[in-house]
């Protein structure tokens, strides 16, 4: 519980840094740190596979590509955003927070759930991915394929 509180506090601090930093690269690094802390949170919740995949995919691949793009474009600081965006964003975040806060009233949220030994392991994840969720899995693959083809088409047009 103490570990959870520390990790939760750190993740909130780094998420705040993501939006408050003026420097884009600092924001990106804060985001990478947030993703890393959330991965550690998964490790403490008996889901090591999810935690490692979180590092591998989000911190290791997606954030690197974001940094790559930042370095190619090199915007030294973000231009001031219009106030309307701040209001809209704050409203959206507030609505999400209220939704989650409603869940916290239920005592079942804090009850210790019974976790089977194979929970979160590669076998159980693969089992549900290729049986119960086979269709969404394939749809997601097609979606990624479409994105790849779209990227190639866009890159070709510029020549």
């Amino acid at each position, binding site marked *: 519980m103490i570990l959870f509180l520390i990790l939760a506090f750190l993740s909130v601090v780094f998420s705040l840094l993501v939006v408050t930093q003026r420097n884009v690269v600092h924001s990106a690094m804060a985001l990478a740190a947030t993703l890393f802390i959330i991965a550690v949170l998964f490790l403490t919740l008996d889901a090591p596979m999810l935690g490692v995949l979180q590092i591998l995919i989000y*911190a*290791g691949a997606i954030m*690197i590509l974001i940094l790559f793009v930042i370095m190619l474009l090199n915007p030294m600081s973000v231009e001031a955003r219009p106030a309307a965006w701040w209001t809209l964003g704050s409203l959206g975040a507030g609505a999400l927070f209220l939704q989650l806060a409603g869940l916290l009233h239920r005592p079942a949220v804090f009850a210790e759930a019974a976790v089977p030994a194979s929970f979160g*392991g590669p076998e159980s994840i693969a089992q549900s991915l290729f049986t119960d969720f086979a269709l969404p899995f394939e749809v997601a693959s097609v979606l990624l394929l479409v994105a790849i083809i779209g990227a190639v088409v866009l890159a070709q047009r510029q020549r």
Partner: protein
Amino acid sequence: MMLDLAIVAAKAFLVLFMVLNLAGVLGWVERKGSALIQDRIGANRASVFGFAGLGLVNTLLADPIKMLTKEDFIPAHGDRLLHTLAPCLALFPALVTFAVIPFGDVLVVGGREINLQVANLNIGILYIFAMASLSVYGIVIGAWASNNKFSLLGGVRGAAQMVSYEIAMGLSVIGIIMVYGTLEPQAMVRAQGELLWGWLPAWGVVRQPLAFLLFFTAAVAETKRLPFDAPEGESEIVAGYHVEYSGGKFLMFFAGEFAEVVTAAGLVTTLFFGGWQVPYLLRDGFHFPWGGALPLAPLAVTILQVAAFTIKALFFCWLQIILRWTLPRFRYDQIMRLGWKMLLPAALVNLFLTAVWIVVRRPA
């Protein structure tokens, strides 16, 4: 409880100590080896009170002292915080990856079983890739924080190269995972102790020869050493991503590179060359396929296993150094072509053939 903690701490310390020291020794081996290859004398200037006889010891002492006492320079318009953070980010992944590499079988001391591996994760292979994917940060952040065109170019090159070769690396290992049916390094090494046709050890290189070539190539590319050192590219972009680094921070980049070499050697040994397996050596001694056995004490078996792992890993360290001084640097587009148009399709073909083989061989 306390004893368990002490054992884990001792193992972690031992592995870190070995990797860091081997990284230092490799720095000397590389300089001396390059001198031998290029017919020079080389690396004989460091002397303690006029005595230069112990080249290794002298260089090992002189290099870090020189580096640590040099001025630590941060470029005027660079980013102080990230410039300092980057070398740590470069060194960290190379050191923690070794945690899941087993360097011996279970050692039984006084009824207590000690697994000769720092952390026995059941998803160890995924952990290795997760840590390898983090090693890009050090280069990218260091390159950006230096506020230098050359270092930025090096950083962009490095990021593109490492992300590209990670894909080929991951796909080549999936074949191995399918053959042995586990993501756990220790279980994978145990499975490599089996014998094919009663005499051939079922090492990864025997089961998956193509995957070994792909993995080793990708692993060399991940260490950013010749022939894949475009991110540094001395003749084009001075020193690439670490051009603005000096003193202790440069030492960390330098040590990180050699730690990556050691880790890559450990990985190749674990995945493809049977890790700590010695052919025909079981827990109670040798059992030769031509009959005959040589019983050994458990401690002797463990020592042999750790020695086997060390020798194999050292061989691959040496091979990487020889490669570095034998091959010229690839051009950047050649690196990209090799990664995406040759290694990646070859890894996919290997994956497909392995899958077909497993389905065909499966008992109906």
